[in-house]
């Protein structure tokens, strides 16, 4: 029996529950270690008139103060090169680092911060997308995806609906804040321990900023205490600051953000403002959609253009739209650069059309789920995306059908209506939404990975890849894949610390694809070794019994034994075969490589085949709202997905429950609030409310179909991001609830649907009702 597909515990689970797992700040301080912190801009936009470090330099315990002038280079960026590590003449967001401080103690850091004197002339900042548009402040160029004939589509339509839809950002709220330790080595080399999803980028940026060769910098990542995209690019800054100090002072340097600083200085999920015009038939079939997406990129590009790319390729979501134009433009504002966050623009694209589905249903007087199913992509026709990729193995129609049954949606929808007709104190809402999430990096060259597999003489194995472990279980999946290749127990395989020394030029652990890419590379390495071991076995087995013939093609690796399929009783243990191979001078190590086949996408023309496959799903949620306090309770959620054949069902299930609740937070209680000057007011869990254990729906059914995904590793599908979008059904359920009291109007519900948003909407309807304002319809 193979171990792929089995529900084994996470490979760090025992360390986690005993407190033995080591995170950056758990590494014991090295002798002579310095503490690193930074002085950041207290204003959102300004011109630096002067920096006076004299009294800070004289502060006892302060070892070094560094500005951009101390860097070899100061400008970098993952896609567009526009970001400064340390501000030069201008500061462009509150929280922007200006001076790096190195000191012997935290007390000295605090004293130094108070002693630094920076004179800044404040300028008028831009905080909103409207402001950015008015001032022509953009990042990158507008992109377009277009198909069909918009004008004809609108002519065909029985109804046309226009709207602007706004969603706010979301903080990652990983529990381990950004952190890094840099150790100086010989000949200006550096070893940097970083809580990063992207060790190679940390290596590259540090070498670039400090004027080192890439081979002088090693970046090491054991694990992260959560990341969710927040450590794809923005772990680089603290690592670079620690590296700067280590290189300048020759002493180990540690930087660990506290939670408040972390939330104030790092970027978030992108807020979007989406303008749409949709045409549809009397039944609700969409004939034309013209949608323009604007995102708030913050002060620097970071990954914003790629996030916009994913938003644009996900606006269609589960629905076939014959005539469509999708335009996308990133806006530049004076907030910390917004960045990757689980879903990477996908949620902001998908929720736009899911919102429209509710509105179309209201106008056509149909059940929203019928409108969705009417528009759903087909399995053999109506199955081409706006960018031209054919949707293969489409399980969406089946997911709709099965979830309708499993959730008893139809009956419950009637019950909701009955409840709302009765209750004077509460409102209920129910909604069923779908998701189709493309898997692969939109940027083609990122879809590659390498792996190193070493077998030791006792038959145990070490595997190293570029994947980083942030709790998602990629290392456990790789452990299972490798053990399965050799037919041995998973505890004989250890997945080692991620290091650029072992795996070079790696891509970020992102886009849900780390297991696909790195797992495939590991399997490639295993198969190369396996071929040599099969040769060895075919030569070795006959020496144990003269009557036996054996050939490499018949060698079986199973349950820790190696034998020829024609004579299973004559067998050697895996360890014995390994030892034999060693004696025969056969290499017991290998490097594997994988490049995702068949993908290609041209952002300039908005066409191609960007995704290897799509992870899909449907979810239904029912909510209860207190009409007076806006208190929102998710009574029940049903989630059903096509995640192929999971490599580890327990781990994938954990991704589904975790992502759902995280998405639920985004659409309900997670409320980023800023002061008039751009200061983030909700910068700790006291004021920024992620879901807690009481918010988990009382009934929470999470399941997946039994289906194969022949195009990917062992029939599996990526599960990291897609289930986050399943939580959109919570938000549409709130919208559905409001539609019962909105006097026939389409509820203009913003995201997140906080208690304040709900109470204020309800109050508007109440006022309108009492004033006898005639109900309007679109």
């Amino acid at each position: 029996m193979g171990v792929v597909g089995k529900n084994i515990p996470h490979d760090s689970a025992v360390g986690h529950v005993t407190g033995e797992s080591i995170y950056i700040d758990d590494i014991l301080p090295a002798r002579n270690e310095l503490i690193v912190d930074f002085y950041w801009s207290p204003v959102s936009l300004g011109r630096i008139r002067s920096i006076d470090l004299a009294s800070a330099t004289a502060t006892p315990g302060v070892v070094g103060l560094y500005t951009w002038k101390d860097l070899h280079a100061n400008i970098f960026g993952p896609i567009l090169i526009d970001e400064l590590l340390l501000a030069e003449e201008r500061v462009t967001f509150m929280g922007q680092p200006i001076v790096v401080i190195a000191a012997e103690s935290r007390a000295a850091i605090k004293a130094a911060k108070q002693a630094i004197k920076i004179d800044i002339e404040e300028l008028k900042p831009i905080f909103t997308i409207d402001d950015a548009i008015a001032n022509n402040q953009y990042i990158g160029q507008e992109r377009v995806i277009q198909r069909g004939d918009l004008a004809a589509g609108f002519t065909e339509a029985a109804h046309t609906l226009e709207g602007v839809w706004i969603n706010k950002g979301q903080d990652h709220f990983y529990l381990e804040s950004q952190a890094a330790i840099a150790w100086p080595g010989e000949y200006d080399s550096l070893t940097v321990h970083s809580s990063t999803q992207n060790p190679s980028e940390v290596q590259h940026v540090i070498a670039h900023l400090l004027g080192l060769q890439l081979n002088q910098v090693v970046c090491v990542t054991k694990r992260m205490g959560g990341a969710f995209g927040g450590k794809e690019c923005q772990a680089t800054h603290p690592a670079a600051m620690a590296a700067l100090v280590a290189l300048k002072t020759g002493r180990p340097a540690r930087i660990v953000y506290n939670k408040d600083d972390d939330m104030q200085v790092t970027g978030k999920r992108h807020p979007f403002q989406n303008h749409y015009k949709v045409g549809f038939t009397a039944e609700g079939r969409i004939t034309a959609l013209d949608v323009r997406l604007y995102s708030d990129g913050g002060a620097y590009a970071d990954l914003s253009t790629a996030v916009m790319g994913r938003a644009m390729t996900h606006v269609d979501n589960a629905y076939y739209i014959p005539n469509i134009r999708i335009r996308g433009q990133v806006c530049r504002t004076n907030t910390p650069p917004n960045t990757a966050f689980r879903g990477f623009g996908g949620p902001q694209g998908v929720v736009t059309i899911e919102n429209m589905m509710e509105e179309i249903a209201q106008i056509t007087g149909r059940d929203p789920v019928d409108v969705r199913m009417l528009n759903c992509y087909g399995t053999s026709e109506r199955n081409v995306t706006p960018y031209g990729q054919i949707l293969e193995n489409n399980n969406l129609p089946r997911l709709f059908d099965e979830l309708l049954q499993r959730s008893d949606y139809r009956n419950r929808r009637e019950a909701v209506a009955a409840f709302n007709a009765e209750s004077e104190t509460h409102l209920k809402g129910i909604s069923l939404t779908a998701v189709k999430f493309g898997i692969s990096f939109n940027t083609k060259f990122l879809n590659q990975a390498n792996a190193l597999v070493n077998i030791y003489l006792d038959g145990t194995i070490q595997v190293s890849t570029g994947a980083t472990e942030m709790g998602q279980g990629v290392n456990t999946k790789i452990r299972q894949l490798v053990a399965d290749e050799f037919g041995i127990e998973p505890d004989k395989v250890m997945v080692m610390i991620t290091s650029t020394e072992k795996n070079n030029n790696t891509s970020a652990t992102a886009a849900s694809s780390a297991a696909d890419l790195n797992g495939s590379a590991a399997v490639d390495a295993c198969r190369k070794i396996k071929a040599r071991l099969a040769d060895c076995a075919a030569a070795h087995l006959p020496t144990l019994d003269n009557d036996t013939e054996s050939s490499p093609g018949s060698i079986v690796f199973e349950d820790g034994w190696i034998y020829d399929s024609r004579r299973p009783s004559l067998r050697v243990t895996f360890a014995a075969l390994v030892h034999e191979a060693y004696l025969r001078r056969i290499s017991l190590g290998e490097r594997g490589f994988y490049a995702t086949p068949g993908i290609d996408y041209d952002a300039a023309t908005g066409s191609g085949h960007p995704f290897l496959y799509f992870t899909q799903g449907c979810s239904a949620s029912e909510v209860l709202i207190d009409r007076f306090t806006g208190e929102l309770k998710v009574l029940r959620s049903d989630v059903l997905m096509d995640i192929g054949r999971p490599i580890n069902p327990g781990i994938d299930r954990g991704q589904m429950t975790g992502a759902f609740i995280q998405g639920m937070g985004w659409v309900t209680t997670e409320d980023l609030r800023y002061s008039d000057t751009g200061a983030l007011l909700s910068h700790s869990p006291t004021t920024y409310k992620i879901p807690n254990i009481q918010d988990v729906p009382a009934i929470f059914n999470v399941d997946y179909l039994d289906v194969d995904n022949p195009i990917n590793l062992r029939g599996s599908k990526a599960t990291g991001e897609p289930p986050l979008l399943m939580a959109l059904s919570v938000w549409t359920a709130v919208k559905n609830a409001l539609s019962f009291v909105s006097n026939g109007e389409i509820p203009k519900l913003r995201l997140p649907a906080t208690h304040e948003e709900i109470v204020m909407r309800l109050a508007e309807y109440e006022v309108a009702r009492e004033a006898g304002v005639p109900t309007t319809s679109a």
Partner: protein
Amino acid sequence: MAGSIFFYVNGKAVTASGQDAFETVANFLRYRLSATGTKLVCEEGDCGACSVLIGRLNAAGGIEYQAVNSCIQFVYQIAGTHIITVEGLRRGKDLHPVQEAMVKCHGAQCGFCTPGFVVTMSGMYETEGEMTEKRVRDALTGNLCRCTGYEPIIKAAMSIDPAAVGTLNDLYPPAEIVKALTDYRSKSIRVESGGRTFFAPTTVDEALRFKAENPSTVIVQGATDLGVMRNKRGYEPPFVMNLSRVAELGELTVRDNDLHVGATVTLSRLEPIMRERVPEFFEILVLFGAPQIKNAGTLAGNVANASPIADTLPFLYVMGARVELTSTAGSRLVDISSFYLGYKKLDLHPDEIITKIIIPLPRSGSDEILKLYKVSKRKNLDISTMTAAFRMQLSGSVMDRVTIALGGVAPTIVRLRKTEEFLTGRQMDRETLRQAGRIARDEISPISDVRGSAEFRSQLTENIFSKFYFETRHQTREEARA
């Protein structure tokens, strides 16, 4: 033992002296003892990653364990206790049943919140009784997880056979620890270091003398507010005093239908009696905060902190609670509504300390209505956007002796005198309460802040009267007949 703090960590005796005595427990564990299993995230008691179990000696000669947030506990506060951290739950090589279940059920992903969950869950089994999902959720309200969606953690907890867990007193037989701590706990402690003084008296007189001699002394009892002020604002007052050793300040008794709550009574100690006598307030206590906070924080502390959104205050206002203030010159009683002179300003003399709160309890069998509300962005473990308390007498459906207090809509808790007057003598019906809401709106002066806009708070104030109506109309005789 003068000049130092003595306690146990995972069965081993520890002495902390000098500045270490003034450190937070979490920092001391991580950076002095290198016990890095205890994690730091928010440093304000809102995430539970730093949870440890604090074992306090009880009258029966045993040790009782409760989860607290070690990031907002000071080392001087844990004098004479036994702290169990995540590292201390294993029995040799064997995992604790909670650890075992969390491994099997995928209760850990990134692992950063996991020690806190494991510790809190282990503490959950110290109290007997059936393990329901509700109990699990209530016990873990103070622990945030960003990876799992909690469902696997709930499953892990539900998969454990409570009978097989064993108590922490089995894991750490208390005899030796109790013996070592009993004598220590009967003596006062004084630690001076770096210009700061900590004092733990054993009698009220000692406490009052210290306060009189050092009027700037801050009482640090639960530290659930002061710990946050230290971590976030560097607030480190020169004189701090902890009253845990003063037995009489732990009083919790009912006399003449008045509940006397001593200065050191924690909110979790208050829960059982409130569940029995004032279920409406018990519900507020459930929402009040994490178990970790309630196991440390006191009612007196909530009163002394004087926050306009303190969750207990509207209740204390409508019940007419009194605060007992004591100095070497004697005691005086102050009505709670005149105790607050302005935003965070108290009628408290520099030589006085709060020694108890006296709460008149509702009389059973009366036509009295008491309704309490706490509105927040997230239902559990969130600071209120607005709080409200309604108390009145119903004669038939006529309202009398109406008292209404609101929090979060002005610099202090406010009584709505005009609205009260309007309602008094009127029939309880929908329109009347709706009108009352509108009057109330004009009586308040809310501000916009991170928890909500001024308009929202005004709207909530108006709405809460309708909510009150719908929740209490069945208590009017007309409604009962209908």
